[in-house]
């Protein structure tokens, strides 16, 4: 609870700071603030779960540790902002504040105890993203991205809302606890399950799973790079976490049809994501598709919900950190080029060995090469799914990991074998720091999964 309040407060402080011309202070303050909140949050780990506002908010390790991950990711994003927005400094407070609100939404999404809270969280997250996506009013593609995201997003919200309404109708409550008990009590009208499915679809949209993924590539490409980073890391992870919590909360046992749907969707997402990514020449777009495939991977956790909580978190963390590192490099390379075509990365290995190394590592992590946490994430996932007896989907996943190597290495090749076209310019300090720290965290997670697995 305190976390949520603190974050919201921090956001407001940023806005106020702007009023008092403390623009310089905004970013440092918010970063320090975030770290403080992170510390607070971590100290609260392993405390007993507590509820607030008659179950509007339920805090437990699940919510806390995911909040911690969100905060870390946001910290990175905030750290990247000043450099990224250096051209219009006046807006910095808005950007930071919106990110913080977005974080608040994300936290709300994982610590809800009531569908209303969940709905609010998801809407806060989405609306902030609409704004960020369209945050370059002069840039048509930014407008387009914003528009597409907005239209489809609100459509999805409608679907979610309809689902919620049906659930409410079936159970007479928005409170997850109560719903759960009612459901396990039995004799519920048939439309309850429809409600669940509609909710699922809405969330599948948010995590950009096939066939609800079409918005993702366009929006990722059109939005400002930093926003893309936000979407592909924070937003996706948050949606996934909320999704998982919701399903665990509402289904007292996962029905077979539901499992089949999940399997199909996840298989489709993996294939579409990876195959489409092969042919992309725009890095942001490529990462969008790879994100789709990762969504497919993450969906596999639903195949044995009781045991996969830790796995989901680990995967999310690995993916998020790798994503941040990758985007930090992308920003540093394409920051002032106006596009993110792959050829911008030619010869990076010579001009900026460090950046190249970081990007390589994060790509290897996404591809699932050992010692990077991405490998362990996939590995844990496969383990759990195999235990659940779903061999087929594991094989599909393996095949997809092979395909994915194809496009990840396209980038690596560009960096190391092609020659740079233009002269090298210095990498902004913020970018390199974020990149390095993120990838180090990623590797640390790889070498010591216990760091996080212990809590779940």
């Amino acid at each position: 609870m305190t976390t949520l309040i603190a974050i919201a407060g921090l956001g407001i402080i940023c806005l106020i700071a702007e009023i008092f011309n403390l623009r310089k202070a905004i970013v440092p303050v918010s970063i320090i603030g975030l770290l403080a909140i992170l510390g607070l949050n971590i100290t609260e780990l392993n405390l007993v779960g507590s509820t607030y506002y008659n179950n509007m908010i339920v805090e437990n390790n699940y919510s806390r540790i995911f909040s911690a991950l969100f905060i870390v990711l946001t910290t990175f994003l905030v750290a990247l902002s000043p450099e990224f927005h250096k051209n219009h400094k006046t807006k910095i407070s808005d950007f930071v504040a919106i990110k913080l609100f977005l974080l608040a939404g994300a936290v709300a999404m994982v610590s809800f105890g009531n569908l209303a809270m969940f709905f609010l969280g998801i809407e806060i997250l989405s609306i902030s993203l609409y704004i960020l996506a369209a945050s370059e009013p002069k840039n048509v593609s930014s407008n387009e991205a914003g528009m597409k995201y907005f239209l489809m997003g609100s459509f999805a919200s409608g679907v979610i809302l309809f689902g919620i309404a049906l659930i409410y109708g079936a159970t007479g409550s928005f409170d997850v606890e109560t719903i759960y008990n009612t459901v396990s009590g039995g004799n519920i009208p048939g439309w309850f399950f429809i409600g669940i499915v509609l909710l699922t679809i809405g969330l599948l949209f948010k995590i950009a799973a096939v066939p609800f993924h079409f918005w993702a590539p366009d929006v990722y490409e059109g939005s400002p790079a930093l926003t893309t980073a936000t979407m592909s890391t924070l937003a996706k992870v948050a949606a996934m976490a909320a999704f998982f919590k919701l399903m665990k909360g509402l289904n007292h046992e996962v029905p077979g049809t539901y499992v089949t749907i999940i399997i199909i969707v996840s298989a489709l997402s993996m294939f579409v994501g990876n195959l489409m990514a092969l042919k992309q020449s725009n890095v942001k777009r490529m990462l969008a598709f790879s994100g789709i495939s990762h969504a497919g991977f993450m969906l596999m956790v639903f195949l044995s919900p009781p045991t996969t909580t830790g796995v989901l978190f680990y995967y999310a963390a690995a993916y998020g950190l790798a994503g941040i590192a990758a985007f930090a490099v992308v920003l540093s390379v394409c920051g002032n080029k106006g596009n993110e075509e792959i050829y911008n990365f030619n010869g990076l290995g010579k001009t900026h060995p460090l950046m190249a190394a970081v990007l390589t590592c994060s790509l290897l992590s996404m591809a699932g090469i050992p010692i990077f946490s991405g490998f362990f994430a996939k590995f844990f996932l496969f383990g759990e799914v195999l235990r659940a007896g779903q061999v087929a989907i594991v094989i599909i996943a393996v095949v997809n990991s092979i395909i994915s190597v194809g496009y990840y290495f396209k980038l690596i090749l560009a960096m190391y074998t092609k020659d740079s076209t233009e002269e090298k310019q210095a990498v902004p300090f913020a970018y390199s720091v974020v990149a390095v720290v993120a990838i180090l965290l990623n590797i640390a997670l790889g070498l010591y999964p216990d760091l996080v697995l212990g809590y779940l």
Partner: protein
Amino acid sequence: MDVLIILITLLIGAAATYFAGDKLASKVATFFSLAAFGLTLYISYLQSNGVEVGFTRPWIRVPNIQLSFLADGLSLTMVLLTTALAPIIILSTFKKVQNKAKSFYGLIMLMVFAMAGTFLSGDGLLYYIFWELSLIPIYFIALIWGGGEAEARKKDVVKFFIYTFAGSLFMLVAFVYLYQKTGSFLNYHFLRLHLNGTEQFWIFFAFFIAYAIKIPIIPFHTWQANVYQKAPTAGTMLLSGIMLKMAIYSIIRWQLPIAPAPAKEYMYPLIALCIAGVIYGSILALKQQDLKKLLAYSSLAHVGLIAAGVYTLTIDGLRGAVLQMVAHGFVVVGLFYAAEIIQRRYNTTEISEMGGIRVQTPRFTSMFMILVLASVALPSTFNFVGEFEVLYSLAQTNIWFAVLGGTTIILGAFYMLRMFQQVMLGEQNTKVFADVTFGEGFVFVLIIGVLLFFGLYPKPIVNFVSPVLENIILHINTSN
């Protein structure tokens, strides 16, 4: 004092090499690799005197992954091969202007580290991690320092990477499955498992894909020739000298003991496949116009024979395979080095552009000749010892295997002597060919020395590995 120190030395070596800068890199690398070799020798000495040099500490609680390094005769022999070849390979790159030297040697050391780790790991996942890790340095070495036309090279190297990576992923699935059964990745826990036929079959199959691609066994070999040709010679040496031995070692260490039933059931098809590789590789070697490609295919043939020996599941087969692995490691490195030396002088590996070199270089000729003879397993060279045992094991399984596999001594002589004739003999070549320098000769002498010594006195290695192999055979025969 335990095996961990070898790995630490190598890892530090890799880092030190990188930070030593382009000037010093090669020397630092040499130093550390030699140090590692010394340590390996010492530890092997300890081990053979019954000192426990293994190392096991818990690493990751969930899932239960142990930092477990087992150091028995087998793994130590392989590590000895690795750390012995490492300095030789590094020495072989001297006198050759290396751009980005520090990265180059750093990567080599990193790869050596990874390979040594693969040989030592007693924990499945640790093993897998090292296995994959060893792939990354060679990928970059081949990619950045490789020769040939850039696009084609890129294509081949990426193909190689994806191909091997694909294979090993199936192995990973097998490991994960085993883990679900045991709750541990430790080798000896796997051995205690009682898997039913189907499980064993699929696990064997998953392992087989991984190893068949790495070794390579036909028809999974298509990456090999191109990569061997295009990679820088040092990389080729690492690949052919050590890396493919990882796969054969893994068959002995992991595949056979964990899933012995399919190994017994499909013994004949497996051996047949391997031997087909022998003949196929030899005949293809006859048609190569590129020296390095020819050596690649000859290596394909030899390795096929080794694999065949392993799959006979006889002590002779395994022992012969191990001896042959070591021998082949040295020979192939030597041969590729010879190719490299010619390439340095003539800037080509096209056989057609060579010939008439012997007139100008008596020393190089004799060294090259000895290596050629060793590779066709002339008695009193190390290769003969291994090849004899392997062929003998094949004969025990089925005499025709021995006959077909034995064609390697005919075809091998055929293509090797043909190559030697076209490359070295004939009227004096118009292009000048400076005889080997002291440094170059030194490398050759080292290799030849090893080959001849163990050719006449293989006892040390035999006694070192035999107990392990006998245990493995025992396990295979006693299991269900």
